């Protein structure tokens, strides 16, 4: 599947396109098929996202998993600071990145 990601303009936070809006959670990402470029152009023009791009991902039993490790780090947070990730009370969540 193809999903869209970027950073929030105001906060810089990593965000994912959920079909209508931008979410902090990769599991909310939606498959944009071949419409990615069109959505990105529109959303960037609306200043709702910063430096957006299309990535490959996989829908798994555990949720949506970006294909590249860099985007998995972006999706969850730094592996060396579990307390600063989106799942601070679940350090084992970091296994998902690797």
């Amino acid at each position: 599947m193809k999903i869209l990601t970027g950073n929030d303009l105001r906060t810089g936070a990593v965000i994912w396109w959920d079909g209508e809006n931008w979410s902090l959670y990769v599991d909310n990402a939606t498959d944009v098929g071949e419409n990615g470029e069109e959505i990105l152009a529109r959303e960037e023009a609306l200043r709702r996202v910063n430096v957006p791009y299309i990535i490959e991902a996989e829908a798994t039993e555990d949720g949506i998993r970006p294909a590249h490790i860099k985007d998995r780090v972006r999706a969850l947070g730094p592996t060396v600071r579990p307390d600063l990730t989106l799942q601070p009370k679940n350090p084992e969540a970091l296994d998902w990145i690797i």
Partner: protein
Amino acid sequence: MYAYDQYDQQMVDARVAEFRDQARRRLEGKLTEDQFKPLRLMNGLYLQLHAYMLRVAIPYGTLNSRQMTALGDIADKYDRGYGHFTTRQNLQYNWIKLEDAADILADLAKVEMHAIQTSGNCIRNISSDHFAGAAKDELIDPRPYAELLRQWSSFHPEFTYLPRKFKIAVIAAEKDRAAMRLHDIGIQIVEKDGEIGARFYVGGGMGRTPMIAPMIRDFVPLDQLITYSEACLRVYNRYGRRDNKYKARIKILVHELGAEEYTRQVEEEFAHMLDQGVEPPREELERIKPFFADPAFEDGPKTLDRTDPDFALWVKHNTHQHKHDSYVSAVISLKPVGGIPGDATGEQIRIMAQLAKQYSVDELRIMHTQNVVLPHVKIADLYAIWTALGAADLGAPNMDSIEDMIACPGLDYCALANARSIPLAQRISERFDASGKTEKLGELKLKISGCINACGHHHAGHIGILGVDRKGVENYQLSLGGSEAEDVSLAKITGPGFTEDGVIEAVEKVTDLYLNRREGEERFLDTYRRIGMTPFKEALYD
């Protein structure tokens, strides 16, 4: 240390106001990211993996307790409670919001700090010896000259859009503690026939094409320092490869022209410039010098009670000989076992500031090895300092050991990285600490980069590790034999790369081989240079 005059403060305040307006326009949608990006980068604001990152300049690594306190406060107020000290003697915040950035710059300006020219293709923060003005082995304090260069290079209209970024280091000792020859320009203050002058090395650097800077002039009179620097820059600005980002650094120009031809062109330019009034008035240097005058050192005890073995170990590793025999420079390690190299919490930053105020003439230095120095500490105060550092988890006795590694932020934070650096650093420090081998290994400089840009200085590590992306999986190349000191050399790759577990095993193997083969007081690097790469390769791959 240097204090802003009205011009410095006006420049910085004006830049804050200008950036505030630029950020506002970006947030209101009046500027596109393409328009805004070069403006934010001019103010040290990057967009990294998780958020905006702000890089704050610490000129030649020197700051006072008020400034350090402000850095800690900003970490707590605007970031997530910590900052990261870098290999350029700067500080980075990893979790900055664009809507806060102008306020942070304003807070910095209140304590005579900024983030100007910490990014972009301009002359970056001038770096220097972290023991400058304190070390017994230096000729003079190099920082007045670094400050003069800072003033010359700040907003220099001719050098704001260079072919690529440009880094200058200034030292004044034979011992190189600033990786001087791995800079675009390395300046060593030297004495010749009773006169003080500058020796110029040009065209060094790390990155994807590491090079050691050749010496192009063994002596430039100090009243021509800026003119000669400008001649070096001008030739580069004219002929540097703007067509290819990867060949745009001055090292490529010097290499392609040859040092001799580059030097000829610089000398020609220099001769042309000498009567053009480029050099700042001598009075400006004389105005700067008193800011770096020695504090009033007091005689005191010159020896220590070392009956506490932990204290004795810290003193042995983390203090450096001072020019006054009642003082030392004390190194605060930001490398606790299993910690993140260079990270310090807001509270730790304020504690270091307080210790500087109480015990070190209100001064601190940032080391390019991502530690902090209290430069002027009375020997009599060392035990109290060590006790306070220990209570703040800042007392690791590991300077220049394998646990004192440099590691770039890597794939945990950096948008350019291909692999994580920090977890390797953590695991290696834990492993060597647990096995007790760290002390046996002695001086061993391990440097880890998460990509070819080499912010972790892996080319210059006695042991270097480079993280690469191998079909979407982290892989690590091991290299041996580098040095960024006065015995500068570039490390050589051992062979095929390793997994994360594999490279840690590999570090264990090469250090075991060293312990088996070393003679006398040889460091790892000395043994490597004596026996060569072959035995290490055999230990790793056979």
